[in-house]
């Protein structure tokens, strides 16, 4: 009941005319136009450093920096050092993004993007996969584009949204844990039924995605993914206008897991494991649905993911065990309380680059993630070969303001409260609530 009340409070602000929901292309569309020049080679610094070679090609230089001050209660802790007391770690400064990249077009047929994270180079934390989006897109037809390389597996709205466009400093725990993230592969995609802004994506990937890796090692082999998104209600003219532009999506992935202790595990943002890896053999399958509704200064977004992992012959005596089931959802609301934001998430009256103070948005998110299994013989247990897995779940509240100073700079202050249900699996004796605080300065260009 308290949960519903809080969600209701987030939705209280008056409804205003619609803006475009999450749309990655809006960023580029929102760029200020670069004056045309008769010269073949043209260098511009208008939106970002950009080199244009006539109509043949262009090269945009991208960079993205996140400077975080993070605090944890209980403190962040290296789990294997079980025998030492919890250290009292003061809030610590981290560089969590230091990305450099190139993005552009070659003729009207090819788009490309290359991006690498350099934070390990600047001495911050370890990064298992420093190469990020690195792909080429071939525009074969208005209804058929072919993307090859490394990019985000088409699954999950939040997981597929660029991090500098998130309403919070970090994604929901559900997206972090259940979404596949980036992988090498080939994908067909395009927009169709333009009136409904429908988009399809379907691809095959070498592994299951970096999101499910364990210490950088893949846990599943070739994976197929498909996603269908858009605003299908636009065609239903009888519906109220603010309902018609609800964005909806559905996605699915399926891949064969590598045998072994490769089941998905649950951990808090600070790294405490509350649901260990289980032995698996067979397919991993995800089903996801997504929703986004933007009405003036208010937006509501939500996702639901259901994942199953097979355990063929994984019992102590080689018997088949019921699937591991992981289920998560989140619902977030945000309210642009001061200033106005464009659909791209940039302030209409920017600070420094304009004559305003930018824009301030407040957001709240409830995120629930549960791990369990279908019923099997015997009492529920936490054993990695338990027929019936004793469930555990995490309920996370995240809230805080975001100040959009201008198109390049954003400051976020978030607090995140994670609560675990299985008292036996509490990562720290006597604690089932984990707090994370973060202040982030984001520079993106």
């Amino acid at each position: 009941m308290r949960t519903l009340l809080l969600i209701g409070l987030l939705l209280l602000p008056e409804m205003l005319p619609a803006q475009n929901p999450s749309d990655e292309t809006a960023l580029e569309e929102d760029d200020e136009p670069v004056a045309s020049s008769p010269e073949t080679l043209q260098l511009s610094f208008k939106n970002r450093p950009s080199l244009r070679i006539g109509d043949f090609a262009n090269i945009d230089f991208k960079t993205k920096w996140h400077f975080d001050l993070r605090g944890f209660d209980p403190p962040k802790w290296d789990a294997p050092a079980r025998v030492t007391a919890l250290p009292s770690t003061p809030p610590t400064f981290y560089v969590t993004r230091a990305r450099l990249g190139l993005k552009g077009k070659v003729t009207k047929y090819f788009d490309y993007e290359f991006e690498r994270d350099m934070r390990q180079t600047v001495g911050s934390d370890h990064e298992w996969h420093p190469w990020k989006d690195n792909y080429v897109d071939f525009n074969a037809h208005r209804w058929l584009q072919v993307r090859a390389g490394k990019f985000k597996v088409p699954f999950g709205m939040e997981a597929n949204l660029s991090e500098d466009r998130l309403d919070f400093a970090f994604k929901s725990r559900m997206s972090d844990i259940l979404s596949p993230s980036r992988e090498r592969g080939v994908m067909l995609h395009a927009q169709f039924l333009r009136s409904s802004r429908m988009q399809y994506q379907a691809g095959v990937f070498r592994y299951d995605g970096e999101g499910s890796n364990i210490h950088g090692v893949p846990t599943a082999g070739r994976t197929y993914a498909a996603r269908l998104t858009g605003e299908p209600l636009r065609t239903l003219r009888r519906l109220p206008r603010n309902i018609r532009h609800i964005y909806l999506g559905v996605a699915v992935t399926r891949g064969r897991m590598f045998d072994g202790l490769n089941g998905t595990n649950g951990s808090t943002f600070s790294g405490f494991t509350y649901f260990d890896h289980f032995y698996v053999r067979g397919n991993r399958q995800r089903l996801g649905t997504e929703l986004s509704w933007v009405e003036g200064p208010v937006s509501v977004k939500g996702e639901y993911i259901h994942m199953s992992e097979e355990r063929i012959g994984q019992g102590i005596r080689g018997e088949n065990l019921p699937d591991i089931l992981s289920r998560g959802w989140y619902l977030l609301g945000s309210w642009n309380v001061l200033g106005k934001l464009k659909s791209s998430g940039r302030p209409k009256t920017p600070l420094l680059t304009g004559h305003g103070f930018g824009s301030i948005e407040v957001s709240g998110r409830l995120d629930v993630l549960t791990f369990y299994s279908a019923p099997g013989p015997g009492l529920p247990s936490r054993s990695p070969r338990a027929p019936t897995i004793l469930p555990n779940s995490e309920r996370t509240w995240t809230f805080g303001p975001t100040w959009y100073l201008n198109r390049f700079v954003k400051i976020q202050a978030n607090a995140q409260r994670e609560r675990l249900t299985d008292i036996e699996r509490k990562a720290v004796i006597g604690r089932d609530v984990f707090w994370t605080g973060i202040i982030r300065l984001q520079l993106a260009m």
Partner: protein
Amino acid sequence: MRNLTIASVLASLAVLTFCSQAFAQTQDDLFNGDILHEIRLYTAPEDYETFKETNFTCQAQELEALAGEVISPLPRVICWFPVEFHWKFNGADVTLPQAGIESHGKGSRNNYKPSFKIDFSRYESRNTFLGLRYLVLRANPQEPSTMHERVAMEFFRKMGLRAPREAHARVFLNDQYAGLYTIVEEIDPIFLQRNFGEGDGRLYAYEWVDYWIFDYRGPDSLKYSPLPLKPENNLINLDPQPIVEMVRTINEAPDAQFSSALSQYIDLQSFFKELAAESFIAEQDGIIGDYTVNNFFLYRFVGTLRSIFLPWDKSNAFWAIDRPIFHNFSWNLLTRRALAAAPDLIALYRDYLRQAADIAGGPGGWLEQEITKEYQQIRQAYYDDPLKLCDHHATGYLRPCTNQEFEDEVAYLIQFARQRAAFVRAQLDSGLIPQ
């Protein structure tokens, strides 16, 4: 009608009798030394393969973590595996379907006939097996009789010391005979509760990492714990400072106040009784062993600074019939200072040694009877053991063992039992004091 009532009552009584038999097993039954037990373990074959692959890495990994070394970004190896545990007793099959198993042992660690540690509460903290949380299945690969450990612990308890209970068992792994093992009670809060009526004090296991003779290594508590004194409980709220003070007192207390100052930190009666017991059974790898201090637990009682030493791993006991009673006394700092400044403690030690000799007896005495009893109990199981190992003189190299070596070692143990008491008494009577 009356007959029906009588029949119902009799049937109920029969059911109750059956149930009481089936569920009446106790810890005393499990450690009943009068019978040879049978334990069956079931584990996924691929887990046992991984167990052997990671056996040695697990040990190194734990020491790295204890030493506070930077944790490698590489995946940490799996050390615990799920196991189905069965104990066959009096026709009953007492079982726990999901327990955890890991490799056990340091110098004796091997992949041929590994020792196991069973954690009954690994996946459910309220799970116990007959009230036990852990159980060790010792393969006894270092000495050919497989009896040193059990006989020694039996002797310790006979001396009135708190020592783990043990019994021999045939162990089957996935229905294959894996050999003759010893069931060993783990020293944990349950053991402490049973022996001291409390288990919430601070329990440390001594991890041998380098030579240490109780010398003071400065005020930094990290020099003493988590290595070499590894905390076994109260992991979140460690309190190692009393250990530092204990060691400082051993080293720096004035001669005149040595006993009284040290008694704040150590139960000296118990300590010198344990030294006497170890000395009597010629323990080569104990508190005053040849590798400096080793093989003990330290328990500090709730709300006090006082600790007690608890014996562990006596595979190198019965080292030599003529091992001197003050062997290594002038090497170990505590005993050296006791020799120099605390005649009361040395007198105590002598008294306990005499008591040990009385308990063990000579030919036909308790020690010989115990060895003979165990020998008769395990002989066939040992002969059937396809994986028996030994390293008779602690060379560090385990090798397959023969039945003849077993018989020879048992013969030596009986000789030890017959002659050791006389040797110890002779040394005591000689008034020998080491320099």
